[in-house]
């Protein structure tokens, strides 16, 4: 049952040291403000799951919150490497990071299976490459009708999913539009969830009979954090700040510039710092 919470309350209640955590968002709607709160609260030993770990995971890894990463593509899209991720993997700074590496298809299927309450997913994949040699969780299942060998992977069942969305109503029903990623699946697959939103409204807009909605009884915490996806974006509110993504390459390249940025922009700030980034821009907003 959804509760309207403050970000600090929500993270305190939902995210615990050692948890398996999915902060999802496929370019769009990445929960940056929630990630910053996790850093501020100093969580340790997290297993981070995500198809496309990007800046917010670079930050969590660089601040020493994570000991394990389950992922399929870890880079700064269109820019290059995630320097903090690389530093952890290549040099063990600030601590060692164990990797569990998949393909996108595997990750998407693992979330889907988790949402569907299944123990595993099957799909046609991982044929011929080396990933199955370095990831023991990739197995094979034989189709009992055709004899075809399919890839099998365990379903994702995170302890907590954290996502950002455009809106919730006061009951806590959350509506998502645009690039949907695997957020709905991540929430349905998880034991607990925190959803930050651009705004909480009296009534969700009547956009479509088939709108993507997470009902209140599938969510634990709903938090209004306007601008909370920056530098990612919220369709209908603000665009992706591609310039910041490019700038991150410089900030994160060295440990000291990274730490200075985190101190000034995360440790010494609160979620209200994100409000400056939001402004309704387009039709999707209504």
């Amino acid at each position, binding site marked *: 049952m959804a509760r309207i919470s403050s970000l600090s309350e929500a993270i305190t209640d939902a995210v615990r040291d050692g948890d398996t955590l999915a902060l999802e968002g*496929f*370019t*769009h709607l990445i929960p940056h403000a929630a990630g910053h709160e996790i850093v501020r609260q100093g969580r340790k030993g997290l297993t981070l799951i995500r*198809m*496309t770990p990007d800046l917010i995971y670079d930050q969590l890894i660089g601040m020493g919150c994570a000991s394990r990463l389950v*992922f*399929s*593509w*870890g*880079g700064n*899209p*269109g*820019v290059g*490497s*995630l320097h903090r*991720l*690389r530093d952890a*993997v*290549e040099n063990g700074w600030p601590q060692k990071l164990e990797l569990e*590496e998949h*393909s*996108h*298809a595997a990750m*998407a*299927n693992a*979330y*889907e299976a988790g949402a569907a309450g299944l123990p595993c997913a099957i*799909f*046609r*994949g*991982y*044929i*011929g*490459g*080396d*990933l199955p040699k*370095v990831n023991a969780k990739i197995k094979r299942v034989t189709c009992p009708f055709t004899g*075809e*060998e399919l890839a099998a992977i365990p379903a994702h069942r995170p302890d907590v999913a954290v996502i950002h969305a455009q809106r919730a109503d006061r009951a806590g029903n959350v509506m998502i539009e*645009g*690039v*949907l*990623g*695997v957020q*709905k*699946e991540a929430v349905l697959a998880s034991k607990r969830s925190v959803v930050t939103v651009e705004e909480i409204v009296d009534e969700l807009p009547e956009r479509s009979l088939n709108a*993507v909605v997470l009902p209140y009884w599938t969510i634990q915490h709903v938090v209004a954090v306007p601008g909370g996806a920056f*530098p990612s*974006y919220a*369709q209908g509110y603000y*665009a*992706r*700040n*591609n*310039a*910041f*993504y*490019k*700038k991150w390459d410089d900030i994160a390249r060295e440990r000291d510039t990274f730490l200075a940025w985190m101190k000034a922009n995360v440790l010494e700030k609160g979620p209200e710092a994100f409000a400056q980034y939001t402004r309704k821009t*387009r039709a999707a907003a209504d």
Partner: protein
Amino acid sequence: MADYKPTEMMTIAAARALRNDDVCFVGIGQPSAACNLARLTHAPDIVLIYESGTLATKPNVLPLSIGDGELCETALTTVPVPEMFRYWLQGSRIKVGFLGGAQIDKFANLNTTVVGPYDKPKVRLPGGGGAPEIATSCGEIFIIMAQGKRSFVDRLDFVTSIGHVAGGDSRARLGVKTKGPTKLITDLALFEPDPETKEMTVVSLHPGVTRAQVQDNTGWPVKFAAQVAETPPPTARELEVLRELHARTNRAHSEAA
């Protein structure tokens, strides 16, 4: 003939390989530039799909990421990512997939995972993303990569996604029914697989490029086709459209941080 850069020739050669009725799974960077150049020139009806779920998108500027709002706003519709990989990619609804990588071998197998040993990497690369299944589920694969001895290698450090495996019928023997890499487009030449051995073979050299230059930038003894053509140089129109696209894109991506 207009003055142009080798990477422009590469993008333009890739765009030309696309047909008006293709349905393409588009990656960020060179593939995205090539696909949109094709769409803005000879292939106005080409269907572009990005793995973020955007079906039949027509971006006005190139996306920096695979899920920029521009892609969604100009798409026919946007589907969830699990659906994208299940119904669209695995469902064999994509004719052409684009791939690139940090390393390629002569059978067009690709590495985007690590340089050095997996457990003690010299360089940890971003990883496979969609590549392992794009490589086997799309009808055929086009690869775009600038040539160099560090990337065109005799032996991959890690096989992230397969091309023609060990050549011959080794790909088919894995049970894969799709064609695999049918074109490798570089800044120097166009390669296609030899019909028998499946080794990637130079079928066309870009204007002014010599065989020696190709060999100097390749980590294995390069095979040339019996007939090697010269790639037609970029037309004024191709260059103009490509440069306008990049200029629009650069303006859009440098808006206030």
